[in-house]
């Protein structure tokens, strides 16, 4: 089904009541709920199609050329949200801004100003300014990385990177792939790669398989998760993909690209057990150690954080997804990583709060709201159990050598970070940055921050990401544009 372009859909929309940043499961659910409740919504996303990482799709014009059949889960919900969003584009109440990168959001007297750049015609950047009384941030999360020797060799990708190439571009990045890290996300990536012809030589899960049995309650209350895991297990069995638990990728080797992966069994503390190391021929490695919430827009606004229970901080929210800043709402992985079903539930709850706070006429009845709250609570309990069952191995730094790169951008080594801790005063990643330049490069510590934190901070203290005033690099030209935006640049028109 091809959607009509915004131009066919009608005249220039009026200013929105709500800006939603991020069109993944949480943002789509929130936008759909708010639109159904009568609000005007601007939904902004950096991607070329709505869906976020979970429902990542190629852009609409490429549906025929990039096949995604069999790569997705919970598609009926995605299609329903798209249909709702599409219907509201016809009414002119939804502005869907794809390929738009939001670089900051600031509080104003009567709401918020959201600054974005339209990158739909690269390398051109056009400034876009959106104003609304309410702001909903649904920017998700990205793979958490722990460095290991050779992790900066080409051929090593994040698990999410392998998946994004596959879902968004139809590209299987390697022929012989080893996956490593912890958490159930490794399984769909392995299953999808195997189904598309890659030989997945091993999935190395650092956690113990019995970890779930210590607290089986949340697992028993979420039978759908059992069924999902069983489906992945069936695909992996069909392709003879071995899943090795209590095992980690401890090194990658090669000249200019990966050719060999070294794995080892881990003891209870996460230390490689001597004599268990295996060398595996492989051209590609995918790694992920859970996820880090993407809080770039929320931190400068002054939103308070809360311990997410998985070693990182996340946005603090009330039971209606309100942050501590009035008018700012957040849903999905920004308030703790928990998967798409939880994100959808939180998105709905957040939109209901917006409807209530703006005194909009359309609101769901109390029974449906209570049911949504129960669903969110159940999924959140599952997510907490997940985090406990898949912790970072406390002794993971045992597989680092002094010359292992920790900060990929500035090429700061583990040895330099350790020296900053032992000989300098560094006890958090900000101080390490000042002493070593770790986190000072292009990615601004998004990749190395959690690992540097683990290397220097007291055990048990969760990672607090650095505040970055600009969430994505923008050109001076685009910045200059925003000072006095011409009227046509403030008009939210979806690129063709």
């Amino acid at each position, binding site marked *: 089904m091809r959607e009509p372009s915004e131009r066919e859909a009608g005249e220039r929309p009026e200013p929105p009541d709500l800006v939603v940043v991020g069109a993944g499961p949480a943002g789509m659910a929130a936008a759909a709920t708010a639109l159904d409740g009568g609000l005007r919504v601007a939904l902004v996303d950096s991607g070329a199609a709505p869906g976020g990482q979970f429902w990542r799709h190629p852009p609409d014009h490429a549906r025929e050329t990039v096949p995604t059949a069999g790569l997705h889960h919970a598609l009926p919900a995605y299609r329903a949200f798209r249909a709702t969003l599409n219907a509201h584009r016809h009414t002119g109440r939804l502005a869907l801004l794809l390929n738009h990168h939001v670089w900051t959001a600031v509080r104003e007297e009567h709401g918020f100003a959201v600054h974005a750049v339209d990158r739909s015609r690269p*390398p051109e950047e056009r400034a876009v300014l959106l104003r609304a009384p309410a702001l909903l941030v649904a920017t998700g999360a990205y793979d958490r990385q722990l460095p290991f020797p050779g992790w900066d060799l080409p051929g090593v990708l994040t698990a999410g990177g392998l998946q994004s190439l596959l879902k968004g571009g139809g590209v299987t990045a390697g022929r012989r792939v080893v996956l490593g890290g912890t958490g159930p996300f490794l399984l769909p990536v392995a299953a999808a790669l195997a189904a598309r012809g890659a030989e997945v030589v091993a999935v190395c899960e650092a956690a113990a398989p019995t970890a779930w049995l210590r607290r089986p309650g949340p697992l028993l209350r979420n039978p759908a998760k059992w069924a999902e895991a069983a489906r992945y297990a069936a695909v992996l069995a069909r392709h003879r993909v071995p899943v090795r638990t209590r095992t980690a990728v401890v090194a990658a080797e090669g000249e200019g690209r990966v050719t060999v992966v070294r794995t080892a069994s881990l003891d209870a503390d996460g230390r490689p057990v001597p004599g268990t190391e295996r060398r595996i021929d492989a051209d590609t490695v995918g790694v992920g150690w859970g996820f880090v919430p993407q809080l770039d827009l929320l931190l400068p606004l002054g939103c308070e954080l809360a311990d997410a229970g998985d070693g990182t901080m996340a946005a603090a929210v009330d039971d209606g997804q309100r942050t501590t800043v009035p008018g700012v709402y957040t849903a999905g992985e920004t308030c703790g990583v928990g998967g798409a079903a939880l994100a959808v539930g939180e998105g709905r709850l957040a939109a209901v709060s917006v409807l209530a706070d703006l005194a909009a006429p359309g609101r769901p009845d109390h029974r449906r709201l209570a049911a949504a709250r129960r669903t969110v609570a159940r999924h959140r309990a599952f997510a907490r159990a997940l985090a406990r069952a898949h912790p970072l191995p406390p002794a993971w730094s045992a597989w680092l050598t002094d010359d292992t790169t920790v900060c990929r951008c500035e090429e700061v080594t583990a040895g330099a970070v350790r020296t900053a801790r032992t000989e300098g005063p560094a006890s958090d990643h900000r101080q390490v940055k000042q002493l070593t330049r770790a986190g000072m490069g*292009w990615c601004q510590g998004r*990749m190395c921050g959690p690992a540097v934190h683990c290397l220097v901070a007291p055990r048990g203290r969760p990672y607090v990401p650095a505040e970055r005033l600009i969430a994505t690099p923008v050109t001076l030209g685009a910045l200059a544009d925003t000072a006095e935006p011409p009227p046509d640049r403030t008009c939210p028109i979806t690129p063709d």
Partner: protein
Amino acid sequence: MTAVTAFTVDGEPLPFVPGQTLAAALVASGRIAWRTTRGGRRPRGVFCGIGVCYDCLVTVDGTGGQRACLVQARAGMTVTTGEGDDA
């Protein structure tokens, strides 16, 4: 999948499938590294695939510092690689 069109990478045409990013097209062609780091001149290509890590930087039509994993490939685009991350 059939390639129907191309952009140029360092002067050479590179076919791509409509909808692919520059990174996806490069990886599909077998290229996994296309620039070097400023300090150690280490090879870098795509790592995170979602615009967070900045490993995959390229120059697009003369503008440096573009993330290949976020830029949609278009026919006739001129992409230059191999420069440091101060490109």
